[in-house]
């Protein structure tokens, strides 16, 4: 009997060994695969188990976290949801993150290894750092001015500090409140469906994710190319251009909305916004130089991030002369985001230098100490400094004597360019009203703000009036807000 008891004992020992080996299999060998299983909710629970770091505008957080006491404990809140939605994006427990919430997720959620007190510390202790904060470059007054200026009309505003590339305002309208998307309940799903079904597409960030034909505002680029390449040497020299202008190689005739464009000088053509003159100048500059200038301004750069990606603005490269003529007046395949057009205005204001735009001033640890600061950004010379000086003069004249008069600010030098871009099949759509500008207070050493405004459904007849009428007052409000805020 003793022998059989021992046998049974060995059997029990085998069972124990099997349990131990299997436990090691599950907890050590298979553990990484199980941890990474998409149905395992633990990563989510950890992610939402602590308050998310905040996004700061003007020193004040525009986000918050609400303790729901649910499984996914903390939900994102927003103090001024629609105002800052084109910057913050949303942080949803169901639908992920977008824009800054996405680009800076590592800092905000606390997973960024930089947040750990020592390298590999968190891996060892299984601790998780508290989320850090993201300090933006936005000027709250400018942001609010832009938002109120659009007043819900479809459109967008982008404003930059020309000397640095700091983004001062980034507004898209109509906007939305990201707060209802934060949770994981049926309400969040409803809000998601409603926002996606909305025909005005409120979740589309028109300032950076949508490109528009820039229309006449692109004439700033064409003028820069003409001056840099030597096609035009004197602003007041007649350009020998006909009106109407027959597109080279075709019988299509290009006309103007205003009179006095025949044989106008560059100065006159810029102020009157003569399509014929700029189409001809573009053709005379030629594809290589036009393309080079457009690229120097930032067109056709697919990798621009602010830190979230910006849609690529385009200036076609394989163009025939007729297409080049149309492209040079901001039509055909020329398309730009509002941010790109703000960069064009900023380059003029900044002596021809394009500073890459950025939105994050610095990221901080939970205590407020700086984790990373925005370093020096890439600089490109888009035109000679002398060309920039001449273009500044032309743009100021547009505001002082021309179509951009509504952007004028007392006590400041303001330069601008209006634009109206036709679009749609046979130009049947309501034209887009554009205005790009920069402003320099009388006591400022250099221009302090460059703005681009686009209003999609401008109530206007053809012509540059709409750019000046709808978009310029918004640009003025934004510039004024920047100039008066210290």
């Amino acid at each position, binding site marked *: *009997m003793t022998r059989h008891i021992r046998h049974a004992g060995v059997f029990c020992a085998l069972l124990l060994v099997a349990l131990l080996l299997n436990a090691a299999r599950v907890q050590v060998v298979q553990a990484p695969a199980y941890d990474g299983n998409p149905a395992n909710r633990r990563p989510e629970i950890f992610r939402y188990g602590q308050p998310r770091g905040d996004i700061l505008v003007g020193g004040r957080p525009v986000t918050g976290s609400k303790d729901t006491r649910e499984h996914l404990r903390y939900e994102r809140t927003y103090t001024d949801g629609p105002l800052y939605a084109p910057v913050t994006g949303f942080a949803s427990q169901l639908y992920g993150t977008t824009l800054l919430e996405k680009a800076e997720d590592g800092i905000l959620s606390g997973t960024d290894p930089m947040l750990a007190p020592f390298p590999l510390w968190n891996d060892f202790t299984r601790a998780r750092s508290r989320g850090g904060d993201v300090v933006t470059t936005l000027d709250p007054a400018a942001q609010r001015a832009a938002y109120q200026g659009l007043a819900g009309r479809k459109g967008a505003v982008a404003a930059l500090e020309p000397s640095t590339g700091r983004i001062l305002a980034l507004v898209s309208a109509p906007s939305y409140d990201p707060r209802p998307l934060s949770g994981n309940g049926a309400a969040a799903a409803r809000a998601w469906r409603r926002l996606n079904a909305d025909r005005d597409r409120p979740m589309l960030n028109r300032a950076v994710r949508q490109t528009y034909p820039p229309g006449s505002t692109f004439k700033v680029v064409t003028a820069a190319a003409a001056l840099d390449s030597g096609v035009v040497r004197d602003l007041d020299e007649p350009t020998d251009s006909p009106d109407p202008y027959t597109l080279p190689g075709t019988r299509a005739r290009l006309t103007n909305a205003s009179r006095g464009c025949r044989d106008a000088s560059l100065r006159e053509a810029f102020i009157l916004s003569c399509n014929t003159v700029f189409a001809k100048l573009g053709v005379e500059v030629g594809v290589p130089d036009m393309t080079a200038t457009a690229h120097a301004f930032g067109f056709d750069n697919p990798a621009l991030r602010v830190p979230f990606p910006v849609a690529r603005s385009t200036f076609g490269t394989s163009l025939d002369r007729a297409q080049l003529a149309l492209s040079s007046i901001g039509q055909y395949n020329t398309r730009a985001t509002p941010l790109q057009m703000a960069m064009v205005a900023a380059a003029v204001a900044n002596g021809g230098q394009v500073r890459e735009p950025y939105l994050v001033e610095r990221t901080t640890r939970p205590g407020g100490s700086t984790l990373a600061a925005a370093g020096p950004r890439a600089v490109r010379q888009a035109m000679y400094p002398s060309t920039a000086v001449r273009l500044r003069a032309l743009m100021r004249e547009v505001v002082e004597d021309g179509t951009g008069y509504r952007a004028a600010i007392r006590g400041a030098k303001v330069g601008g360019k209006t634009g109206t871009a036709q679009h749609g099949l046979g130009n049947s759509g309501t034209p887009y009203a554009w205005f790009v500008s920069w402003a320099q207070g009388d006591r400022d050493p250099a221009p302090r703000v460059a703005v681009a405004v686009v209003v999609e459904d401008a109530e206007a007849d053809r012509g540059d009036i709409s750019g000046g009428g709808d978009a310029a007052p918004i640009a003025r409000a934004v510039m004024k807000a920047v100039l008066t805020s210290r």
Partner: protein
Amino acid sequence: MSKAGIIAVTADPPAPAVRPLPRRRGIELALIILAVLLSVYGYCAVGLAQHNTLPPGAAGYGAGLGVLALLAHLAVRLRAPHADPLLLPIGVLLNGLGLVLIYRLDLETPGDRAAPAQLIWSTLGVALFMLVVLLLRDHRVLQRYTYVCVVAALVLLTLPILFPAVNGARIWIRIAGFSIQPGEFTKVLLAVFFAAYLAANRNALAYTGRRIWKLQLPTGRVLGPIVTVWLVSVGVLVLERDLGTSLLFFGLFVVLLYVATGRTGWIAVGLLLAALGAVAVGRLEPHVHSRIATWLHPFASIEAGEGPNQIAQSLFAFAEGGVLGTGLGLGHSILIGFAVKSDFILATAGEELGLAGLSAIFLLYGLLVERGYRTGLALREPFGRLLAVGLASLVALQVFVIAGGVTGLIPLTGMAMPFLAQGGSSVVTNWAIVALLVRVSDSARRQYDGPGPR
């Protein structure tokens, strides 16, 4: 198998004939204090992790557990002074740890607190332990009640059929707000019955019957009664849909039969019966089929877009624990949902204590089983030997079936983890098992004269 046994902790010196082993009651007391302190430490760790403060009842909890353990210890000192000194501390530690884990899970389910009831049941269990140790002066008395045991077992098994099903299984009876699972008590009764019956008839079972090839088959005469009992109990269990328990009974039956007779033929018969039973049950019971499918493909429901099932959630919990665990109170095993405090309690231990803690728990059970087997080896009379081996095997099989089930080693069959899991009847039964082992080991060590006859 060497003399070291399964897990040798205390090496028994080969003693001269009929001289009792040292009593070692002081060691038992020290280990009990250690077990209580470990439990209180776990309780405090949960509170600190969840609320950053010591839980309010820590002192009371520790005192309660301590008093219970000390009373049990006094009972052992008084009436079973030679008993194995490891049995009681292991029971105290496992029970205390179970209370900590249940208390920890209660924090996640504020509407459904199970720890207070579990504490009451533990008290009842310890009371039963003391009753058995104090009143049952010699385990051989139980031999007189062989048939009382089997009748009581069958009555207890049949009783829940008269009560409504709970969660698909008819294994509970409700009296005055308390749910009792009679099947749990049946385990001890059947172990006593099997031990007594086999001790009386083992010669007849072993040495008669036909021989087919190398298998010595038993005769129908002795085979009859015991197979009948087994069939009835398994039949009732299938009707009640409690497959874990029927698996346990079957395993106990085969082990004891083998130990009593030494005939591999019994194992062949047993495996044949098991195969027939498995096929029949698989045919008749669709949920058994689904259990096997879940075991083979634990993530099939995820791939089908239906979300993780309990096994998948349990595996996720174990995986999260890794080697060292998340720490008590810091895991999320509550995601398992239903039965997280009972059948799946081990997942909480695995997640929060890690492979290290889980292995320690397995080794504690292993130690308990080993002490049972050691007792069986030390005794000379067959009933005591079979009883000790049977009770120890009961613990071993039960741990294997449920632990293997929740870790994906074998198909899951619902069963309580001894001492750890929520469930009053189970705790009381396990204390009865420990009490009987204490009683048997007392006589074994008192008259120790080396390992028993071969």
